[in-house]
């Protein structure tokens, strides 16, 4: 089982969700976050001086999946999350972390069927 963390553009949430559901990944958790990356932050004046608004609004997806779903999930996120053909800086990253166990609070089930 893996715990997939993806950071995407806010505007891409809908399309990533759509792509994920195509590969039957329907459960996920969404967090709002801000990111520094290669993409430079926009800067703007505040009461007269430049404040580097260098934290960019991003959306983080957390998806717990079984092994066989890892690659489809990654592909779906890329498909739904990339801007245009060759992508744009700021499109984000996907991190795959190992996961030891998963428990469903409602039933207490554990392991892969709980995902």
């Amino acid at each position: 089982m893996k715990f997939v963390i993806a950071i995407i553009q806010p505007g891409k949430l809908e399309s990533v969700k759509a792509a994920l559901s195509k590969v039957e990944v329907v459960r996920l958790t969404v967090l709002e976050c801000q990111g520094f990356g290669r993409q430079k932050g926009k800067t703007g004046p505040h009461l007269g001086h430049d404040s580097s608004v260098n934290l960019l609004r991003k959306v983080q997806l957390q998806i717990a999946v079984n092994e066989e779903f890892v690659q489809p999930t990654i592909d779906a996120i890329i498909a739904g999350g990339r801007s245009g053909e060759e992508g744009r800086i700021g499109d984000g990253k996907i991190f795959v972390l190992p996961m030891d166990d998963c428990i469903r609070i409602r039933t207490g089930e554990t392991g892969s069927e709980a995902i």
Partner: protein
Amino acid sequence: MVQWLRAPMLTCLVLAGIVGVNMMMASPTFAQDDAAAVVEAAVETVEYNDADYQYTINTLIMFICAVLVLFMQAGFAMVEVGLNSAKNTINILAKNVMDLAIGVILYLLVGFALMYPGAPEDGVYPDSWVMPGYVGAFSSFVTLDDPAEPGSYSSPADFLFQVAFAATAATIVSGSVAGRMKFSAYLIYSALLTGLIYPISGSWKWGGGFLNEWGFQDFAGSVLVHTVGGFAGLAGAIVLGPRIGRYTSDGRSVPIPGHNIAFAALGVFILWVGWYGFNPGSQLTYAGGANAFATTYIGLTTTLAAAAGAVSALVLAWVLFSKPDLTMALNGVLGGLVAITANCDRVSQVESLIIGAIGGALVVAGVILLDKLKIDDPVGAWPVHGLCGVWGGVATGIFGDVPDGFEGSFLGVQCLSTLIVAAWAFFTMLALFLGLKAVGMLRVSPEEEQAGLDISEHGMHAYPSDAVSAGAIH
């Protein structure tokens, strides 16, 4: 019948019910057409005599004061929104918009005539009263006066000013029942309060009813407006019971903090400003030096009480909780304003400071008291409007100049009358809420309450997250 049809239907039923058969639609309509004609003719008039002058000034200033009081609706909405959880914001706003809208219609169709059936001529009540001195007339729409024979002010201005008061009484309850009452139940309640409960007790004093005969004094409605709202809300809070999680199984009190205190403070500033329509406007006649003076003198005492209430509540909270609690200071402002409302015309500057300061202290005391009693009043509507309203009525008896020619104990009359009005509001509303509870129409399910009334009652969030609302490409 599907749940969601229930509410609109019932509301309409209630409405229709209390409007009743003898709603003489025709005549007023005529009257209005004449009126419209008058409106046409308007521009010609060029002769001004004293009567005309008085009518003009009184009408125009009363209109401005009515606008100020109507603005208070925004203040009440912001205070309630700010002092509650974010998940109930839509519901609170919907209640505050709709109780005004429904209030206007019900007061037009029923309340206004019920509250002002005509004052008695030396003790004899006009036939318009259904129960002389106790229940007024059943008729609808504003009967328009003829400015050619000017009275003291125009009837439309009068209606606007009075309906704003009715809406105030209604909206006070919203705060006490926030977070758990069904939206449909609230609509039914607000129709009843503005249509029947408030106008009837109002008629007892302002309509010339029996309390007025007793010599009871309530200049702008500490008792008739705020005590009525405060005790109606108390009934609601008791019947509903506390919000889930407000008190733990082992009886610990777990406060549920408001989600946006900036809204609450903005609301209090708006209410403070609106009160300059509420109290000075209640002078009703403004033309002539004495009236102009009185109007502004009332504005002065009102201001002093508000300031004193803020200071006393803040200092008391500071001493009790070792922190200067803003929510207490805000409610202290309101407590001071409510307390001075009954007597702003008949107390000195020093007295108005005292009355306001005690009002502010009572707010703190009332909040603690309710908490001890495990009664969950999310915005503290009872301490502010109920308790300070009662204090306002009593303070009139203590500090207020005794009306000329008054016999017996002024304080006694004030206390008794205040008690009667508070009881009237409390028990009639207790009955209503118990009834709604009995038929399972009062409170939402625990699941709905947990999810928040915004989603469960209105199917929308007040503050959708950026991620959701940022829009998507396909």
